[in-house]
């Protein structure tokens, strides 16, 4: 018996892994075929695609030349990359480097698409990238909120409601006091208060956490719309907060491409980077983080060694609410400048997806948010370009990719083991 058990792992082939490898390989080949067939149609053979890399409004600084590529050749090259990797993937696979290859193929595919859309025209690539980061900001705040809650074992599906109430509070308090920092703090507090409600319902009353989150979402949507219709319609002065102005960081913002993307935003952007760093460091390198993860993975064991499970969960959920409240304030104080009902438009749910996509880590959540942000940004730009492809299918892509990731068809993400399970002391 022992001999069999010892040799078994070597004999057993991970059938799921093989299936994943095949699915990926076929997917790459299909992508290559799509690129070669569809994205070469109606391109003139001598057309070039121009990608502007210098931000539109910028004066002075370095003069960054535009990137000009021959359209046809580039598209065929991208198709070759997709198909080539697909063939290798099918034949022998890439082992642990599959994620790098996936990224390369995805970039090739998207670049081919952009080249096709820009054939014979000029597209501000830097504009798309800048908008990507801006669109990704609130999604990342949502993902961070989710990471904080779920690492301690509480499912937070109420991110959407917290974003929405943060947006509302930021606008109203920011306008009423005439001070946008007060508005931001108030938004954070309201996010924390809603999270407190979630925590009480989920932890104290042991309500199903998904139901509790759904209730908070409906409640936040109803209450903000109600007050907006009843008060803000007539008192418009309560919905005109001062926006946070952009603060380019002196030297860093001059770096080509990266500078305009990451170092020319407003306060929210830098706050987000600080939060990502803090939460990453806190969760994985401090005693606090170890305890939080212990509570999320095995609350009974954590309790046995003297960690207060209930307190840890309350603290983390409320912290998560504060982060989501700040993220919500971005919609009004950082982006549009006034509150419109249901203005978050499901970004909280996307944040949830980004958190899962990113494997319950802050940095992963941010990278996943960038993908969703890119899709958002592309939609905004494609309508300007009047591209013939139905942009809806492009917009579906991030959601479908999330489904594929959750289904474990490509790689596997691992959630905290005790996520969503109420804890009862024995």
């Amino acid at each position: 018996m022992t001999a069999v058990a010892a040799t078994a792992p070597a004999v057993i082939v991970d059938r799921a892994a093989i299936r994943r490898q095949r699915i990926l390989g076929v997917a790459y080949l299909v992508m290559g075929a799509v690129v070669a067939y569809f994205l070469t149609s109606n391109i003139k053979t001598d057309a070039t695609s121009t990608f502007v890399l210098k931000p539109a409004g910028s004066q002075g600084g370095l003069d960054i030349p535009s990137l000009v590529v021959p359209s046809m050749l580039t598209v065929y090259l991208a198709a070759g990359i997709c198909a080539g990797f697909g063939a290798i993937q099918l034949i022998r696979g890439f082992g642990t480097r599959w994620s790098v290859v996936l990224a390369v193929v995805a970039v090739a595919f998207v670049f081919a698409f952009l080249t096709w859309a820009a054939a014979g025209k000029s597209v501000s690539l830097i504009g798309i990238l800048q908008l990507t980061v801006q669109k990704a900001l609130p999604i990342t705040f949502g993902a961070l909120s989710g990471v904080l809650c779920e690492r301690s074992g509480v499912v937070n599906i109420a991110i959407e409601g917290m974003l929405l109430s943060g947006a509302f509070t930021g606008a109203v308090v920011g306008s009423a006091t005439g001070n946008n920092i007060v508005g931001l703090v108030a938004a954070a507090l309201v996010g924390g208060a809603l999270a407190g409600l979630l925590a009480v319902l989920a932890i104290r009353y042991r309500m199903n956490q998904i139901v509790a989150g759904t209730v908070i979402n409906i409640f936040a949507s109803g209450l903000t719309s109600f007050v907006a219709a009843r008060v803000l319609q007539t008192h418009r002065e309560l919905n005109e907060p001062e926006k946070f102005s952009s603060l380019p960081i002196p030297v860093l913002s001059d770096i080509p491409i990266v500078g305009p993307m990451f170092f020319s935003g407003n306060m929210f952007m830098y706050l987000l980077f600080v939060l990502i760093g803090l939460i990453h460091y806190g969760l994985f390198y401090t005693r606090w983080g170890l305890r939080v993860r212990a509570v999320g993975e095995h609350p009974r064991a954590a309790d046995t060694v003297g960690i207060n499970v209930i307190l840890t969960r309350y603290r983390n959920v409320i912290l998560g609410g504060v982060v989501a409240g700040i993220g919500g304030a971005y919609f009004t104080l950082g982006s549009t400048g006034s509150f419109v009902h249901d203005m978050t438009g499901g970004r909280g749910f996307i944040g949830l997806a980004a958190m899962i996509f990113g494997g319950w880590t802050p940095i992963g959540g941010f990278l996943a948010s960038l993908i969703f942000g890119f899709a958002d940004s592309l939609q905004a730009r494609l309508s300007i370009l009047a591209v013939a492809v139905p942009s809806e299918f492009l917009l579906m892509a991030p959601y479908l990719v999330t489904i594929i990731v959750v289904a474990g068809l490509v790689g596997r993400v691992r959630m905290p083991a005790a996520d969503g399970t109420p804890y009862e002391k024995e």
Partner: protein
Amino acid sequence: MAEPLPGPAPAEGSTRGTVPDGPTLAARLGTTARGLAVPILAIFSALVIGAVVIVLSDVTFFERLQSDPGAALGAAVGEVLRAYRELFTGALGSPTDYVDAFTSGDPDLIRKAFVPISETLLAATPLIFTGLAVALGFQCGLFNIGAEGQLYVGAMFGTFAGFAFAGLPWFVHIPLAVGAGFLGGALWGFVPGLLKARTGAHEVIVTIMLNYTAYNLISWILKVPGYQREGRSDPISKVALDSSWYPPLVEGLRANWGFVLGLVAAIAVSWLLFRSTRGFEFRAVGFNPTAARYAGMSIATSTILAMTISGGLAGLAGTSIVLGVTHSLTFGISSGFGFDGIAIALMAASRPRGIILASLLFGALRAGATPMQSLTGVPIDLVVVIQALVIMFVAAPALVREIYRIRVPETTGLETFSQGWRA
């Protein structure tokens, strides 16, 4: 191993209190009363908090409170009562209208007096379907948060069947369009069911993502020539032929046979869940998957089938709108019916009979909200706040118990469905 496994039937039946011929009539009435205590107290508490919201959101209230507190409070109470009265008469009609109409004997007046009730039935119709959809999922341990997307895909299929087949008699065309709607929703429910059964992907995430996929799908198809109405540049579909419309219950009122179909669906779901072998397996899987597997049931089959039927029911909600009210597909045919379905299923503890009652309640709130807004200026969204509070109180019976210091059942029968993201 040779002896047959004892099925979980007796335990299952008794814990759910569905044994028809056990306790005495008095005991059953007592159970019913206690079962109703939580929903009634929940509605009451929600209305009270709603009143507070109305008062606090009145900007002038605080100014008057400083100058003349008594008058300010009186005016506030008056405003709340006026809003709730309009909500009530907007949903059920006003007694004076009924009396006037019947004393005059004018059929037009009588019909007009019944308009509020007709509107309530109309608003309740899609809610019955989405409530049943979510409840069927709950019974099998699945949280179908995607009823909204399934509704849209069902409406998309139903509308297509409605305008694409000309010259059919109504008794062929209506079933065809309704069946197409069921098919569309079922397709959108089958995917998360299959993924859950085969890969363990959590249905909450998959259905949320499929909601957004459905919105984009609708956005696309409403621009496709042949689906989009000729001569229109805005996203709107062709008009479904009138042979596919649900006929009105009473000529001149908007309530239609879609409502009756909703009642039939409730009976069918009730039979499926509580009388059929398949439904027994659904509930067994939802109640205790491990026990169900040991009893030889297939969790995968139940999961896939339950999600598919659930999606189909949500698709029928879509047809009840496009074949019953709008007669064409646009964005915004569903103002959150899918999400209200969650509230309704929770409130009804996933029982079909309760779902009809809860749908009528939510339908009444929706129907009354519009006249309330136009007559008293209290925004429609108050109803959403009230709904959220109702679910909160219903889903946390311990909360009601603490507030009112009464004995209510420990559970509302909702604790069986899945915990967390795990498969």
